[in-house]
């Protein structure tokens, strides 16, 4: 009989943190990111309106705000990945 192959252990839940808590945190962060994406959609509409009237000041302000919101979403996703490790 051949030797059994080595196997990795199943991932264990972090100590002191239940799976339900992890799921709740995931849901909350998901809702946060969903709100951020909704705001970015609104900002894209504002930028398009500004483009119609060639108001580049308003268009750039919208773009800057959208980038900030995108960075917030990326931070939250990074936090979620660290949290679940």
């Amino acid at each position, binding site marked *: *009989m051949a030797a*059994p*192959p080595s196997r990795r252990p199943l991932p264990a839940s972090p100590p002191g943190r239940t799976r339900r808590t992890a*799921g709740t945190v995931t849901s909350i962060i998901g809702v946060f990111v969903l709100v951020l994406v909704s705001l970015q959609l609104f900002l894209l509409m504002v930028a398009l309106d500004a483009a*119609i009237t060639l108001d580049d000041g308003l268009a750039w302000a919208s*773009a800057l705000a*959208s980038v900030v919101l*995108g960075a917030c979403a*990326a931070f939250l996703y990074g936090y979620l990945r660290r949290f679940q490790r």
Partner: protein
Amino acid sequence: MSSSDSPRDRSRRDAPGQRQAPEASSSGGRAAGAEGTGEEAAGADGPGEAVWRRDFPVPAAGEEEVTRREFVRYLTLASGGLAVATLGVGAWTSLQEPAPRRPKAIAALDDVPVGGEHLFRYPTEEDPAILLRPAVDEVRAFSQRCTHLACLVVWERADGHLVCPCHHGTFDAADGRVLAGPPERPLSPIDLEVRDGVVWAVGGGGH
């Protein structure tokens, strides 16, 4: 292989793709053909431990959590895409240069009746504008594009308003300011001069 680990039990634990053929299971000794494979080794490690768990080490209780995390991941990607799109719109807007304002003859003053209007284009042929003559010695002109969503406004003489038929944005025909409706900015006025009985546009207008 332990004596209690029958081929039938093993086929129940293993993944569907790794199940043995029915004829192999029914023949008892023929099931030993799996010896030396991962299936055999998994059975030797104890009950409930199958090889397929190595390749898919996510317990059933955590599947919902993984799905939510993936959803957040896609949302984050969408967020980045929206940010890039908005940046692109800003860059495109900055690259657009406003049309030069060159003086342009619009119409002879006598051709515009008192209380009437005359449509023209200024500063380019893609910029519709409207000339109003509310009194004998008074002319005004505005860009005809509504500042809400660029529909063309029309003059309602009775009220003295310029009205956008799309969303009922209402502007004062005296100075172009917003009176009602969704527009936030006033109509763009056009600077006029009357030279030898001809109305000239000399600036303003456009967006």
